[in-house]
């Protein structure tokens, strides 16, 4: 089931010089750390002039999907939604 969260979260990111790309590596939410597994999709959206990076990813154990929003104007991460991959 997909659930809206909209909470600020701590995220460790990694920048790969080879791939010229940065991506979340660990997400800390509700006192638990989730190592990032597959990043399913990454795209950007603009809200006015503010660029947001949207990452949709699964944790390493493939038990939780997260949608993260990185606001480039405030440099803050928001966990927008989570899902266990099951129907509601």
């Amino acid at each position, binding site marked *: 089931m997909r659930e809206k969260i909209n909470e600020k979260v701590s995220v460790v990111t990694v920048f790969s010089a080879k791939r010229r790309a940065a991506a979340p590596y660990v997400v800390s939410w509700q006192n638990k750390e989730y190592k990032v597994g597959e990043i399913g999709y990454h795209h950007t959206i603009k809200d006015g002039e503010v660029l947001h990076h*949207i990452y*949709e990813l699964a944790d390493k154990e493939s038990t939780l999907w997260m949608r993260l929003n990185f606001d480039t104007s405030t440099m803050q991460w928001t966990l927008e939604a989570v899902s266990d991959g099951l129907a509601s």
Partner: protein
Amino acid sequence: MDLPVNYNRPLMMHIDLNSCFAIIEQQANPLIRHKPVAIAAYDTPRGAVIASSYEAKAKGIKLGLNVRDARLIDKNVIVLMPDPPKYRDAHKRFKKVLLNYTNEIRPKSIDEFEIDFSGSHAVQRDISLTDIGYQIKQDIKREIGSYVTVNIGIGPNRFLAKTAAGLHKPDGLDVINGDNLLEIYKRLELIDLCGINTRYQARLNVAGIHTPLDFLGAKAEYLQKQVFKSRVGLDWYLRLRGYEVDSRIFARKSYGHQYALGDKTTDRQKLSRLLMKLCEKTGRRLRANGYSAVGIHLWLNFANRQYWAKGKNTKSEMYATGDIYLQAQKLLNQAIIPTKVTNIGVTVFGLQTCSPEQQELFSGSRLDKKALARAADIVNDKYGEFTLVPATMAGMQDIILDRIAFGSIKNN
């Protein structure tokens, strides 16, 4: 006229992203892959399914079904609301991949492209289009995601390329040429041909045409004068043989928006508020592309399946949202509303480019509506959509959501 089948080398390619919205969601969320997924306009029981994954289609969850029925078919179906910015991003990546091969690409919808390879480098170097097709499949996996698959069809014209793309779903690649055309038509029904719906099929049946082979065998004069009674018959005669008749690009003639009401109503005030938002969305796109309009059309659908529609040419040009709304509201005032309204739509037509611009009498003064509209657009561009809105639209942020139109898309 008696033309043979076109035996020229097939150089038209049609690419179609399989179950587009659903597969992009499955790409984005690895936990829902290989599961029935339905994308619905709203995830409420009466929300309509607008796309479903192959797993959902296999269970009978198809387009147009509502969410409640989809859940009755399979209680484990995962229902998601659409995410238009993500699909537009995938469309851009899809296009970027294809532009590596040739500039002659034409988007047919958010998930379909036509590519004309005639004169391309690949053809000059005598590279097989089938090889290019397999390469494109790999490139799309790299650019959009490993779970994403496409159907590719290759044919001597757009029609046969699209027909080929539909032969083996998902992840197919088929070629239709002069040599296998009859064989392919033997396996198809009339309704399988792109552009033939049930009513066209009935018209063909009445004319004694029951299969694609009958259709192919019909004389041009018969199709033109007896069956279709217009030029359309000749187009079908050529199209079926692999000659190009669908290359014309139609310019944009209108801008519009429509909305399916979640809360169906007969309340004219509520309808006016919705109309204002539709006019604002229409106006934003109209102005962003440098147009004004001199015609407007308003339509309403009702719960009893009837509809009301009216259009008119406006004496003055419409540019600002207020101009559009004023004319739309005048039309709405004339509407007869017998029962609850289910859908409302507004379209402006008679587009005129704003450059060079006809100066208004009050240009530069506080009565200059164009300057005010432009200033409001600048604020919304900078701080986000609907930051500055007409008072009628206050508190409507979550009503009339961003959507992707079905069918043909234009760059603007």
